[in-house]
């Protein structure tokens, strides 16, 4: 394409032991460490500073993320990513050993695993976005459904009783002008009045009774904000990885024919990135779900 030949484009530099691309990707990863590092310290800071009883969301019995997140799904995703890391490194190893076909096959498996990760993530996100937390102005009791309550501290340190219910909105009733009249609210099994063994039943709630109503989406609590931003950014990294890998799956053979070493290097760099994405998840999983 251009007349200039860049030194150490393919061969490693004697001082650093890396060709340009590899050094470049490592530097990029260093900056990524700071990016995720900042988000991680945000999480720690907010968690340490959270008023009692508000982490991960107002009303949870303990501070662990699994009060509102599904550990099995995340464990499954961990397995997907770890496996994809192995297939990625195998893709590179096979290319290095001269087997293009096997290399590309492993790359394809990596893409598929990454896709599986995203699918699981989609279901996780979706369930959060349709799950509601309602905080009432005062104690709520209608048709046998009672709000739960807990005593929390505000950030100013004063005590405050919070009345709340978690559940799903079955139906939103609006008047002719489109203003909301009431919600038909189905409380979660464990928070409903009936307790274990009883069928929970839906109850009508009026906007005037509600202090705040949110989904378990990013605005639900500090924790959920952290959860969505960090996993969202991580998910974007996965998407980026998929795009790059698909690109190499589609166009790789051309480069392989003329510059097999360079192609293997590209896959190595992609791999470094991909292992980093895996590594981030290895930390995210316990931090967000298990602590």
């Amino acid at each position, binding site marked *: 394409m251009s007349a200039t030949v*860049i030194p150490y484009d393919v061969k490693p530099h004697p001082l650093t032991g890396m060709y340009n691309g590899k050094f470049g990707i490592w530097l990029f990863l260093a900056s990524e460490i700071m990016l995720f590092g900042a988000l991680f310290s945000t999480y720690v800071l907010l968690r340490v500073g959270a008023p009692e009883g508000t982490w991960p969301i107002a009303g949870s019995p303990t501070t662990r993320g699994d009060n509102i997140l599904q550990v099995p799904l995340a464990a499954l995703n961990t397995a997907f990513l770890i496996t994809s890391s192995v297939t990625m490194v195998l893709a590179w190893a096979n290319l290095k050993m001269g087997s293009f076909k096997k290399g590309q096959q492993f790359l394809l498996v990596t893409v598929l695993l990454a896709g599986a990760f995203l699918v699981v993530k989609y279901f996780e996100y979706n369930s959060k976005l349709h799950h509601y937390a309602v905080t009432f102005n005062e104690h709520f009791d209608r048709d046998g459904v009672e709000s739960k309550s807990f005593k929390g501290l505000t950030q100013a340190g004063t005590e405050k009783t919070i009345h709340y219910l978690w559940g799903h909105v079955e139906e939103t009733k609006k008047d002719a002008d489109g203003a909301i009249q009431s919600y038909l609210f189905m409380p979660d099994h464990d928070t409903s009045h009936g307790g274990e063994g009883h069928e929970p039943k839906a109850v009508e709630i009026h906007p005037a009774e509600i202090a705040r109503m949110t989904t378990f989406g990013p605005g639900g609590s500090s924790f959920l904000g952290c959860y969505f931003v960090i996993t969202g950014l991580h998910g974007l990294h996965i998407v980026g990885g998929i795009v790059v890998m698909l690109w190499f799956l589609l166009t790789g053979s051309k480069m392989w024919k003329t510059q097999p070493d360079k192609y293997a290097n590209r896959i190595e760099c992609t791999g470094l990135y991909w292992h980093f994405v895996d590594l981030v998840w290895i930390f995210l999983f316990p931090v967000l779900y298990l602590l």
Partner: protein
Amino acid sequence: MSDHSHELPFWKKYIFSVDHKVIGIQYTVTALLFLAFGFGLMLVMRYQLAYPNQPLPGVFASVLSEPVVGEVTVNEATGETGKVLTGDGYNAFGAMHGTIMVFLAIVPLAVGGFGNFVLPLQCGAPDMAFPRLNMASYWTYLCGGILMLFGFFVKGGAANSGWTSYPPLSLIATTGQTIWLLGMVILITSSLLGSVNFIVTAVQLRVQGLSFFRLPFFVWAQLVTSFLLLLAFPPLEAAGLLQLMDRVAGTSFFDPGGLIISGVERNSAGGGSPLLWQHLFWFLAHPEVYVLILPGLGIIAEVIANNTRKPLWGYKSLVYSAIFLGFMSFIVWAHHMYLTGMGTTLSTFFQATTMIISVPSVIILTCLVISLWGARIRFNTPMLFALSFLPMFAIGGLTGLPLGLTASDIHLHDTYYVIGHFHYVVAPGTIFAMFAGVYYWYPKASGRMMNEWLGRIHWFGSFVFINAVFMPFFFLGMAGVLRRQFDQTETLHGAAVQGLTVMATWGAIGLALAQIPFVINFFWSMFAGQRVGANPWKATTLEWTAPSPPPHGNFDAVPVVARGPYEYSVPGESEDFSMQATA
């Protein structure tokens, strides 16, 4: 290395070029335009400050409209009206002035412009390590910049929470703030692409014989700068993302909850921390000030060595100081936050690190000053700028010490004293270094010299007027005038020193006029400047081995380096300079 560039169509050669020199020039020109624009915003503000609530003069009045300016009646009898800057307009202009100057003008000029153009040449490299990434970095920067400017046209005007964008104010600000955040994320991405490229180039693309300690100081300065950009910027990117989420997705990272806006409580889960933003912001923004100054120091070192015709005094101390400076700059950031209620233990730590970091800066300055000792100095335009840089940077640096100690910072924080301090560092400091660099490398980039006399007029005017702008700031600050203030005459202590503010405004107008010779010189010399060969300054470093302007691929033959960067007046040599490249 044959010159294939002639086969490239125009748009590939000059617009979507992957050649580091073209990209460097693109960066330089774009950044200079942003510099002028940021300065223009400040002129409007200066007018308001000197003549509060008086109609703006014609030029400004004609281009500005609601909500930046408001209509007022000037003359009751005739019904004549005029336009005055509004408070909102002032806030938006102030925030955008800061943002544009720092992120769109100085950094792109110092790193994107000079770094791109000079660094590969001084390393003897044919180009950057990743030419296409380099191109992507420029275009990302341009997109970010245009997006930032687009903020002026959305409802409520551009971002108006200061260049620091402190929450919770910034959380409830108008749409312009969202644009600002998006713009920042894009600009940071551009910086990251650039810094990776710079580091790889400086480490891996040095030609044979060019060991680390034979690198010109400029390359060292750029290398340290790149590390700062690489590791300090991502936390701000994260912070920007979080603030964006706070604004658009209803999260509450920086919102502690219970915020009452116009009588209504902001709907949020609360639990956030406004101080968290300040930490993440200053974690970047302190290293950022070294990003602003280090490349400038690099340029000054080159120019001084060249025009004193002597080796730099203490080259190794310069290098070690720059590295130490870079390292320390990551652990001083909370000195911007003494007044946030920080406890004494931590503030002691940060006072100590702040005092420590001033040591390498002083070493660098001292080395540069001692380099002048006993030299037969050539007083050309680049050298004049370099020489005036030294005392200006000294003033800027020394006035920073009282800000680094809590006892005095309590009084000076958020006053015009602070504004004076950092402008002495960045305006007569960095900008003078940038001018020195433009005059110094112009012949390399264009093959023609800039006019010397226009250059001297430019230097003299700039030097006089820039001091007239910024010197009063120290006195204003010590008199208690606050920064980001729309009209100081509303306070008694402010009204008492209004004269100084008027002086600064006229200084700024003079400064604007003093740039006219530069603009003329810049364009005129492109066509009519005296043609020169490869090495008009009789300099030693590698870029002067390549033809002027260097072709695509830079060097006619890959150079081999035999000696250090500043071997001037070596005893026994026939010339007073010995070039790094062996012939």
